[in-house]
């Protein structure tokens, strides 16, 4: 009964034991359910179906939609290291780690919504599909530590890789891609799914793969891959309480099979770095030989050593070499991506309002997709591969469908790491994203085709008044004097008033491209780049705007003011 063949290991019903409905203590499952519910509420409440209509986006401050992102310790620490700055979630991350000393991997077992999702997947689907099951692969236990080391090394060199691997960003990003796809289909037409690009497919696929790994082993991700979990595990080794196995153990193997985190070595000792104290093993042990006792208490003599610092397949030296190798790989990746970044920065993506300067942005953005999720007009899109691997999944502004609403500042509120600064509304309205540029070969009045004032009225309605008119195509009378009513009024962008919100582009696109099919693309487009955008790490955007306007203000012409009724006319 205890012999396990290499490869397949069929689960065996515990004969004579009451089959418990939940293999895990009730408190834990309840907490998990609540946390998952909280996460889903925060996530989906601000999804497209509930987005506030125009003019309603000022409904106060967002609730903390980035709560779980802030709780993920890897997010806070790695971002702080990569950006060499104090970021908001740093304090929370440290708090989580400290609590992790007392309750090892409490986050993993009780709070992490990705973990709960994985548990659900395993419970519904994973259990029924046995084809891909692996036996407990002890050699993989240290993989996540290599992963974590690689991330630290890369962060040291200024490249943020944790966004790819940390638990919550993977979850939020994947959900955003999938949810965006489904809601795009439900709200509009299903052909809008084509607007999802490679990057979003990749993100969705990543999440599905993480879930799908549960077919190999329940909680495969948590046990072997998750770097956030690895960080918490490291804290867990300091825990005063530990799992001990007493001499009554018959080595039946049930505990090894049910342990989510693969914390029980083949010799039935405890891998301290993995054990989450979830106590599933305790519930299923027929001999009740598993106890969680303090480090200093003396249990009855155990059949096996109380701890086992090594796994049979890997020596201590092997582990250490593995860490060095992972570190090297991380550094290599960082260097490679840094090169990649330099070449792609020139493509000047338009970033959300209040973003920090580009190089720092790439270091600070955890690529969680939260800003994309909360944007009420769906203006922000995660970048695909066009910005390189270093830029994938970072938010960019695409103004074809809608523009950045002047009464909304949600992206800054939702960003967990502060890559998008949380700005007050009047600050946000002064932060330039780019400059609208009118293509005079396409714009209808500029070409003399027909009158059109869509961009003008959009900009005026938004309160920016950055577009005014100029008469083009003027005709002249016999005396060479221009005729006042001839030609068309064509729009002109005032560069010192435009903030690049893209409302003009969205309107032109919606009417002239989609509805009337007069143009192939919007005639006015927002372009980012040097001199067209404001990106400051700290300080007031309004101040910046005032200074710029002062600089550009033309010198007053008259040294002495003209009198309204001059003397020679009196």
């Amino acid at each position: 009964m205890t012999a396990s063949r290499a490869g397949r290991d069929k689960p065996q019903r515990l004969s004579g034991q009451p089959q418990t409905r939940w293999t895990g203590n009730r408190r834990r499952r309840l907490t998990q359910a609540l946390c998952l519910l909280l996460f889903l509420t925060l996530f989906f409440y601000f999804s497209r179906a509930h987005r506030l209509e125009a003019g309603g986006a000022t409904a106060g401050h967002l609730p903390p939609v980035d709560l779980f992102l802030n709780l993920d310790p890897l997010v806070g620490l790695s971002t702080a290291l990569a950006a060499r700055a104090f970021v908001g979630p740093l304090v929370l991350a440290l708090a989580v780690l400290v609590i992790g000393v007392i309750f090892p991997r409490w986050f993993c077992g009780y709070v992490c919504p990705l973990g709960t999702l994985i548990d659900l997947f395993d419970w519904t689907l994973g259990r029924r599909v046995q084809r891909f099951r692996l036996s407990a692969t002890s050699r993989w236990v240290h993989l996540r530590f290599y992963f974590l080391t690689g991330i630290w090394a890369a962060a040291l060199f200024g490249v943020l890789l944790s966004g790819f691997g940390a638990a919550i960003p993977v979850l939020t990003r994947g959900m955003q891609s999938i949810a965006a796809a489904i809601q795009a289909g439900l709200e509009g037409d299903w052909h809008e799914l084509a607007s999802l690009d490679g990057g979003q497919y990749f993100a969705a696929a990543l999440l599905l793969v993480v879930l799908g790994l549960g077919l190999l082993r329940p909680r495969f991700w948590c046990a072997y891959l998750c770097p956030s979990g690895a960080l918490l595990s490291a804290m867990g080794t300091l825990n005063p309480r530990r799992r001990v196995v007493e001499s009554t153990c018959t080595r039946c193997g049930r505990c090894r099979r049910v342990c989510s985190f693969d914390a029980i070595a083949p010799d039935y000792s405890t891998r301290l770095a993995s054990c989450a104290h979830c106590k599933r093993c305790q519930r299923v042990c027929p001999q009740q030989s598993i106890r969680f006792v303090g480090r200093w208490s003396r249990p009855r003599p155990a059949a096996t050593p109380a701890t086992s610092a090594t796994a049979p397949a890997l020596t201590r030296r092997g582990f250490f070499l593995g860490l060095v190798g992972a570190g090297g790989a991380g550094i290599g990746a960082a260097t490679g991506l840094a090169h990649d970044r330099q070449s792609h920065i020139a493509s000047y993506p338009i970033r959300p309002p209040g973003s920090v300067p580009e190089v720092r942005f790439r270091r600070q953005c955890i690529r969680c997709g939260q800003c994309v999720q909360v944007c009420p007009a769906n203006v922000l899109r995660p970048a695909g591969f066009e910005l390189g691997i270093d830029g994938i999944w970072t938010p960019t502004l695409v103004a074809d469908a809608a523009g950045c609403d002047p009464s909304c500042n949600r992206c800054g509120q939702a960003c967990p790491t502060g890559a998008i600064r949380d700005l007050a509304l009047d600050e946000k309205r002064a932060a330039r994203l780019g400059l609208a540029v009118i293509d005079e070969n396409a714009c209808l009045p500029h070409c003399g085709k027909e009158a059109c004032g869509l961009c003008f009225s959009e900009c005026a309605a938004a309160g920016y008044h950055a577009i005014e008119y100029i008469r083009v195509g003027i005709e002249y009378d016999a005396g060479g004097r221009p005729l006042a009513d001839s030609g068309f009024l064509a729009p002109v962008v005032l560069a010192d008033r435009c903030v690049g919100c893209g409302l003009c582009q969205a309107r032109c696109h919606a009417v002239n491209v989609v509805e009337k099919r007069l143009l192939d693309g919007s005639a006015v487009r927002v372009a980012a780049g040097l001199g067209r955008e404001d990106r400051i790490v700290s300080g007031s955007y309004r101040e910046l705007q005032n200074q710029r306007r002062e600089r550009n203000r033309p010198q007053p012409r008259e040294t002495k003011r003209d009198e309204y009724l001059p003397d020679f006319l009196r």
Partner: protein
Amino acid sequence: MSRVIAFQRVAIVLLAAGVMSIASPADGQARNARTKTEVDALIAQAGSSTPDWWDTTELDYPETLDLNWPVRAGFGPGRFEERGGRDRRGGRGRRGGGGFGWEQSPPTNVDEYLIQVVYPNPSRHKAGVKLVHHLMIRHKDDPEKLRRSLNTLGEMFYELFGEYARAAFWWQKCAALGGGADALKVARCYFELGSPATAADLLSQAGSDEARNTKDAIKLWARIGEVDKALSMIESYGGAGNPGTDRFGFRGRRSMSQSSKYLLAAEICRGAGRYDEALAYYAKVLALPNSETRPADHHETDDKFEAQVNRTGTEFLRTLDLTRVPDGSYTETVEAYGGPMTVQVVVRNRRIASVEVTRHQETYEYLIMAQPTARQIGQKQGFEGVDVITGATVTSDAIINAAAAALAKAME
């Protein structure tokens, strides 16, 4: 595109028509019974006072302007592009002086600059007046340019601000130096300042064809009170001679179609409060065979459609009694030139406080041209004598129709 429709902007307030409170001249006497002397005194007093925005407005114009103000734009008649002028497709020059942001070659000619940049943008109107004023002072020793500048000042106050006293003031200065001003517009000023008799005199003495035989002249006659004379002028419209110009150089047509004549007659009657006659004219339009009412080119609207919409509006006007409208804010949507237009009328203390266009699909130009209509409804506290701007009749009529319907439906 449900999301796009969902984000449509609702409130578009242009020019705060309702907040336009031009200080009306002191009402010493009944407004319509002033003599020419009295009006002249009014003109002198109002015209010589400095506008309250004078000191706070910067004299702002591009450095590239040639302040010597040559008359010719340099290229003679015809479409500018055909002359190989400013090339829009390539060879863009960098912009010149402050804050225009346009990539075309910077402006040099003052007249062109005024028409291109100043007149289309209300935010630039005051600076434009200061510019012309500056030119007046600069060229005070050149009689021809001095006259030009005085005339232009008058035009700007008349067209851009609707300040008739100031306009008349500058035109009088121009006339004193031997220059000529648009007789029709001067007459209008006298009428607006309270002397229809003087206006009638001026119109009768007007020599040029402009003042005699254009739509604006006809309308002014009607506004003065000579409705029947105006109606007869419509009948004989379009005799020999030049077609004349209506506004700012807009070329008029040699003759009007029968349906256009009926519509103009109806408009005059409506403005004079003779609603039954107006309705009769509208009915005549609708009774015409279709061949005579089809638009001649795409700039015109279907006259029958106009007659229909205006007829509904006139019905409301007929029943309207402003004293029975309670305080509040009322909106109404009617068909205008480019699509539906929503007008909001606010009544406070039993007076019309403001008339604003909140939603529209008009071309911006026409809406700006029709702004005086909205303004005058508030100024005159009613619809009699409210201007229907030639060249933007459909838009102006829509404002009147909508406001009348809103108020009529709100009556107790």
